[in-house]
């Protein structure tokens, strides 16, 4: 199993990652190695085997849906990269989204 530079570019756009041409080449090579290794799983007969997505056996863990004060509003605001009039500043959201 191998992955091409074109495919790496496509995934990088999906993952919102800029890559240099050098990186694209290296990732295509190393990820191809990794995918090749994953073929080992084809040896295993998994017909009728359930998936394990968690190991605790816990089910439907719920809590009461009551509003509470987070108590750290000021500290959270301080972590924001850009704030104007007590609100987070972000670039326009409704423009053309990708330039890739």
């Amino acid at each position, binding site marked *: 199993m191998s*992955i091409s530079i074109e*495919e*790496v570019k496509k*995934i*990088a756009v*999906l*993952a*919102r*990652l*800029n*890559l240099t041409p050098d*990186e694209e080449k*290296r*990732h295509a090579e*190393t*990820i191809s*190695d*990794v995918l090749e*290794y*994953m073929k*080992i*799983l084809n*040896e*295993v007969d*998994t017909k009728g*085997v*359930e*998936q*394990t*997505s*968690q*190991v*605790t056996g*816990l089910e439907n*863990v719920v*809590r009461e849906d009551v509003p509470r004060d987070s108590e*750290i509003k000021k*500290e*959270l605001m*301080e*972590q*924001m*990269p*850009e704030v104007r009039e007590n609100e*987070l500043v*972000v*670039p*326009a*959201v409704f*423009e*053309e*989204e*990708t*330039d*890739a």
Partner: protein
Amino acid sequence: MNLNELTIKQAAEGLKKGDFSSVELTKACLKRIKERNEEINAFITVNEEGALEDAKIADGLIDEGEATVLTGIPFSVKDAICTAGIRSTGSAKILDNYIPPYDATVIKKIRGQGGVLIGKTNCDAFGHGASNENSMYGPVRNPHDLSKVAGGSSGGSAASVADNMCIYSIAEDTGGSIRQPASFCGVDGLRPSYGRNSRYGIMPMGSSLDTVGPITKTVFDTALIMEQIAGNDPLDATTVSDPVPNYPEEIEENIKGLKIGIPKEYFELEGLNDEVKEITFRQIEKLKKLGCKIVDVSLPYTKYSIAVYYIIVPSEDSSNLGRLDGIRYGVRVSGGNLYSLYAKSREQGFPEEVKRRILIGTYALSAGYYDAYYKKAQTVRTLIKKDFEDVFKKVDALITPSSPFSAFGIGEKINDPLALYMADVMVSPAAVAGMPALNVFAEKDSSGLPVGVQIIGPRLKEEIILRVGHNLEIK
């Protein structure tokens, strides 16, 4: 003996008796950090002023007779765990300026009883690695040989304990990140069962595998810490409500009559170093002398665990790391539209390995590949888990090497990601299955590098593996 060389047990006794103060103990650790950190690079952030303030408060608690075993004891915390008011980068530049507004639950428990947080330790960025070379703050050097890696991903935590820059460390283990560096640095470290300790406030990697645990100088110290930090947390719905045993008391019992399994697959793995194998067998001999019954066992799906691990974890990772986008916190690289803000912030803020894992995960979860990779891995995971469940019907615990080799050279494997992934071969199976596992320092090899053994136990039976490890260590 210098104060910074003490174990938790010794330090707590000294503090209680008034032999020294927490301020003196903290100063001894800070002095060691000043002397050694430049070379070893175990700490990204040293909390000098804050630690001294905390130590003063702890001395007050001790005077008033309100101390617990962790009061006034200086500890380090892996930088991928959030600490209120203290910079937490996860070893990636995208969080270079990030000061968490809250403590991870485990850290809150320790600080709440007067623990002295001395600094944040270097790691592979967000836990991605087995050598600590994937940190954007430089690699950690092994205190036993500065040309070697400290292991990863919690390399800074293991090195900070091994080099006596603190008394213990709190780290995170997704697929071996506590046990492998502990083994490389000659200290002890526990990966608890998934769900035993709260994950709230740790930077998530593989959410279905992440665990938080201690790295210590003795197994007894690990038991002391576990008693304080384990248990259900309403802020982490995956924590279990099973009662927390009195670990320090339980591990004092001898191990006569315990059945210990030797899983043959671990000893047949390609690349297992002969000397590591011999050292492990000397520990098995010791177990025999202590009255354990040694049983040969088999876990046939062992060899698939690396493949399963490196599909599941990057998949969960690629999703988890979506939150780091330069929008709400961390370092934002502006200019251009929204897409370019995302893509540039992530380009400059992540090291190459983080990008690789995001790409692998995004690929494995994409339409057309989901069944072949993620779903397949999750079904093989069931078989690996069943291997352990079956074997623990026959034995109480398993013993294996913690790593196929002792610490390797800095730069030796960095250009071959797959070779570095294979370094997790001994530690990933228990992680995939959610079992608890402990690294115990065994002895040094002929080149003077530490070698540890791994004790794996059934789910939520930390007391058994700690008991085996404690008995191995003190006898």
